[in-house]
């Protein structure tokens, strides 16, 4: 095994054999320290994101007094951080599957017990009072003695319903109009097809936020300002180019043979579209539906500008005004509203994460 020329430019004398074991050990430790450095870096940069979200959850389930407490946060971190490290160690050290499961169960039990002992007594659901009490703001204020508040809140279910209505009807309309248009653009030959595809490309990248001033004036002049219908129309139009773009990609991927055999069997183009091609792009429809829904659910700037009456509030406006009104008084309720608002969009995102890659490219978020 004597190599005349070794790595790193070391010319070993022919008599002394190369110590391969030592070199291997050095390479191993090099690799290990590199991995540790990588993990340390990523954990360090991710903490500023993880901690605030975690804080939000702990406050929502534990805050009692006016101020935002961090005691519960640190206690839960004190339980969870060692638990995560122990999980990781168990996964690395376990020799076989049985040991792994034993270790994980033991750690989970210990962590649950520690959590119940340290944090359990502080947990409660009273911050979710806004779910049952429309006038929760006065209740919250009376707890600390302050009486007056500037804002009259509608019931949270009203805002929830409005958000659902906007996001839901936006989704249905966008899905219908976009799949019709995308199918035609993908499968039919007509004059001006190239020009239309070109303008679709431009529209799909066009920043719609720049149109907010003329859009406001337009809605005012046709009398749709401060109506949910007006907002839905605007949001539908703005989502459309992107949805058509994505759907066209999915239609392009459907093989022609399927359609040809449908036509040979006597179907019309419309029947072929509805009964044969549309089922083939189910994934695309699902992806566009989920993302349009999330966009409608999260929408803030257009609803903030176009909707005024509090019966028209969506969840984002409800959240905004709760923050404005009772922020200094009760962090618990604010974060409970936050959790209530955040959970649906997180669930949808996780469910549709497979499509995130191709969809997020056209997003307008900075």
């Amino acid at each position, binding site marked *: 095994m004597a190599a005349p020329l070794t790595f790193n430019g070391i010319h070993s004398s022919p008599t002394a054999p190369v110590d391969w074991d030592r070199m291997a050990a050095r390479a191993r430790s090099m690799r290990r320290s590199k991995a540790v450095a990588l993990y340390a870096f990523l954990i360090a940069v991710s903490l500023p994101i993880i901690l605030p979200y975690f804080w939000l959850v702990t406050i929502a389930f534990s805050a009692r007094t006016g101020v935002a407490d961090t005691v519960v946060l640190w206690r839960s971190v004190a339980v969870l951080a060692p638990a995560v490290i122990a999980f990781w160690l168990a996964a690395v050290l376990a020799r076989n599957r049985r040991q792994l499961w034993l270790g994980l169960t033991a750690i989970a039990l210990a962590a649950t017990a520690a959590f119940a002992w340290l944090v359990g007594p502080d947990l409660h659901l009273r911050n979710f009072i806004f779910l049952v009490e429309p006038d929760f703001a006065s209740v919250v204020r009376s707890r600390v003695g302050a009486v007056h508040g500037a804002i009259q809140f509608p019931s949270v279910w009203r805002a929830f319903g409005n958000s659902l209505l906007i996001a839901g009807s936006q989704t249905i309309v966008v899905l219908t109009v976009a799949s019709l248009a995308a199918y035609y653009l993908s499968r039919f030959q007509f004059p001006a097809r190239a020009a239309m595809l070109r303008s679709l490309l431009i529209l799909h990248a*066009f920043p719609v936020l720049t149109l907010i001033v003329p859009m406001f004036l337009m809605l005012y002049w046709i009398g749709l300002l401060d109506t949910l219908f007006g907002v839905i129309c605007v949001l539908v139009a703005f989502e459309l180019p992107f949805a058509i773009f994505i759907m066209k990609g999915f239609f392009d991927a459907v093989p022609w043979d399927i359609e040809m055999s449908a036509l040979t069997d006597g179907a019309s183009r419309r029947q072929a579209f509805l009964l044969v091609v549309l089922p083939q792009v189910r994934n695309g429809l699902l992806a566009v539906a989920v993302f349009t829904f999330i966009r409608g659910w999260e929408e803030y700037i257009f609803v903030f500008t176009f909707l005024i009456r509090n019966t028209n509030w969506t969840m984002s406006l409800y959240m905004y005004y709760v923050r404005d009104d009772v922020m200094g008084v009760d962090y618990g309720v604010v974060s409970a509203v936050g959790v209530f608002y955040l959970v649906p969009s997180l669930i949808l995102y996780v469910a549709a994460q497979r499509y995130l890659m191709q969809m997020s490219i056209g*997003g307008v978020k900075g």
Partner: protein
Amino acid sequence: MSAVTDLAVERRYRAASAVRRRTNFVLFLGPAIALTFLFFVIPVLIDIAVSFTDLDRTLRISKFTTEQYQKVFRGDSRLPQVIGLTVVYVFGTLAIFNVTFGLVLALTTTSLNKVSGGFFRGVWLLPRMSPSVLYILLWLWVINPSDVGLLNQFLMPALGLARPLDLMTSAPVALIIIANGFIGASLGMIIFTAAIRGIPEHLFYAAEVDGAGTLAKIRFITLPALRWPISFVTIYQTLSLLVSFEYILLLTKGGPFYDTTVFALYVYRRAFTSGQYGYGAALALFLIVIGAAAALLGWRFFDFKRLLQHPRIEVH
């Protein structure tokens, strides 16, 4: 006799086909064209028209003038400051977060195993996935200028400060750059990750055999492969940073005073806070032109030939 009927049948068939062609066009493309025309073309026309009027808080047009444009080019003393801030904000966020940090995240997470890398990418997607109002709420709590603020709990002991730090008044521009950057970094991260995954593995092995270290591999293999993704992210994010002001409006409301009012937010504040709709429309026109230009530039990133692939069925 039969030739005549054949001709008639064919003519009738042609006519029916033409009718079907037209109804199909209206049926399939009609709604999309109508909506696009109503909500993209007409607003732009309205914007141009309104920018030549004196439309204000009363929402009534009394005369047509060019005074809004005179104001843009001469009268508005605040505009130079706003434009300067916009340049700092856009290129600061882009250079620090959207491109550089996105690249760092993509490089580090792709060199871990799949599960851990996915976990950290998921964490960095969290800000993008949460509604804007909620995301900014968390920022307001973190930078809370009292000793309960999360940041102050770390910084006060670490830097030995006597009084809690108030980033909102002491470093507002840095604050909006960081708050937007946390969201912007994830787009670069996703796109760069996909691009890195697409690099053939054997190139790395070959480089390793040639004695390349980690940095050399990044410098000579990964970065050259990322040239197009990097320019794509740069153009798209420049555009979206230029026109979006949602997070700034929620976080600082453009304040203190006008310290964090970028151009897009300045348009919004002029139109909706001061009620100068005519002036707002004139300012917005510049953004619309820039947006359209950047969208045109975005063409280069799409394979138009593939988009245009010709239909293979002639039946209507």
